[in-house]
């Protein structure tokens, strides 16, 4: 019966039932929220703790419940099929928060414009670009062939053909967004150069280790091979040269696989255990810190 109640209803053939159920859904959830709101304030922390625990219980039980070993659903238990649904549900509810950031940012910039704060012209540009990207992004989805700019001139950069919403979207996304993204990413190249100039100094034992290891790997990747190129990898066909292990590219490879790998794994031990501890504290409402200590 439960299943039947939640079954899809065609809005075209059963319009009344569809609208009724929509209204019911809204009223039902709002009623639950109203009850929660009406509960005594002292209960609120416990209510939050219960909901937090319930939030985590699905994935935890799904993991610990034994899975079928054989049969058509091997590797699954009775909860596994709901995984996509839970993921969808949390994604949908989570996306409703999109407005929070947007409101915060637009508020900041509209205020900057209203008060004509220094650089308010930039705020105008920001809001215009936001509106344009949103509009043409959606038009590109729903009406990509809609003409936006009619063919103005028979020649020139604005091409003799009309620009539709897909073209305008490409102008904004490929011309603007993608190029600015790549340009920002490439800023790192400059900063990596200045950071290595400053950081690679034989100041202490630790900074020396950092520098030597970085230089070996850098050389191993480019012309380092020339420095130790005299050491041939083979003594004679089929016979390895043991000294070839001292070639810079081999040293670099050794640093990356024999030093870097275990060190990173050691860090992982702490990070995974730390993550486990924080997750447990959050799940069981044992967490401490600013947000969690507050009286509500």
């Amino acid at each position, binding site marked *: 019966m439960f299943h039947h109640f939640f079954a899809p209803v065609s*809005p075209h053939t059963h319009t009344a039932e569809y609208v009724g*159920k929509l209204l019911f*859904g*809204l009223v039902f*959830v*709002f009623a639950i929220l109203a009850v*929660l709101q009406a509960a005594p304030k002292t209960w609120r922390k416990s209510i*939050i703790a219960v*909901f937090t625990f319930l*939030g*985590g219980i*699905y994935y935890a039980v*799904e993991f610990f419940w034994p899975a079928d070993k054989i049969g058509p659903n091997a590797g699954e238990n009775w909860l596994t099929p709901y995984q996509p649904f839970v993921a969808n*549900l*949390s994604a*949908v*509810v989570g*996306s*409703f*928060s*999109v*407005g*929070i950031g947007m409101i915060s940012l637009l508020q900041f910039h509209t205020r900057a414009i209203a008060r004509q704060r220094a*650089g308010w*012209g*930039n705020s105008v*540009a920001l809001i215009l*670009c936001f509106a344009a*990207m949103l509009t043409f*992004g*959606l038009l590109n989805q729903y009406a990509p062939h809609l003409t936006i700019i009619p063919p103005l001139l028979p020649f*020139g950069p604005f091409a003799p053909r009309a620009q539709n919403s897909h073209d305008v979207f490409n102008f904004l*996304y*490929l*011309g603007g967004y993608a*190029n*600015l993204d*790549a340009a920002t990413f*490439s*800023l790192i*190249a*400059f900063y*990596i150069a200045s950071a290595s100039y400053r950081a690679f100094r034989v100041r202490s034992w*630790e900074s020396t*280790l*950092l520098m*030597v290891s970085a230089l*070996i790997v850098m050389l191993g*990747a480019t012309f380092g091979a020339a420095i130790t190129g005299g050491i041939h990898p083979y003594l004679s066909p089929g016979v390895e040269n*043991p000294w070839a292990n001292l070639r810079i590219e081999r040293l670099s490879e050794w640093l990356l696989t024999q*030093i870097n790998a*275990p*060190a*990173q*794994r050691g*860090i992982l*031990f702490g990070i995974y255990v730390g993550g486990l501890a924080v997750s*447990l504290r*959050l*799940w069981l409402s044992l967490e401490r810190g600013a947000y969690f200590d507050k009286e509500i």
Partner: protein
Amino acid sequence: MSEYLCHLFAPQLLLGAVGTIAVLSRVFKENRLYRLFEHIFLGLALGYGVEITWTEVLRPQFWDPLVAGQWAWIMTVPVGLMFYGIYTRRFEWMSRLLFGVFFGLAAGTVFQDFSGGFMPQVIKSYKPLVPPPPTPGDHFLTLHAVSFVLNNLLFMTILFCVVLYFLFAFEQRNRFIQGSARTGRWFLMLAFGAIFGSTIMTRMALLIDRMYFLFVEWLRWAKP
């Protein structure tokens, strides 16, 4: 000539080129053009982010099923509205309630993540300290055997020292423990240096590609 000019002023290319120059000019001096493009970038990103949220999540997972008859999705709307409780004193705790559910969801996956994502790493650290049986025709049997054992021993030593360095609750009074932890830090520095060195090429390739875009694709000052 006019063909070249048309190419230079093709809107999409021109916007990309001017934007690239504006962003890169930042490294020399913070300037007006840069500031303008910083804001343009933020505006485009915000619009794009909202558009993606609609087209990739809300439309396929919420709106389409809803109008196709799966009416129960409507119930997510009041739940989503709980986020906006942070704007009022009265309903602020409602947003905490919803945050709590999300924290719970994230925390619930930790067991699977730990067992499936991390435990294999522990198991991969079983490095045998006995060389494998010799391969026939190996000219440097001893060398290979010794380097195999030494490398694996080094692996275990580094792992041991680094984990010891990350212990917080024990006073490191013991000389051996102290020394191991300090050695662990040295190994960490070697590892960080190696990461630094191996990242440079990819980052430089990005800048080279930007220059390719400006000088070859846009200005056409050189052949591709």
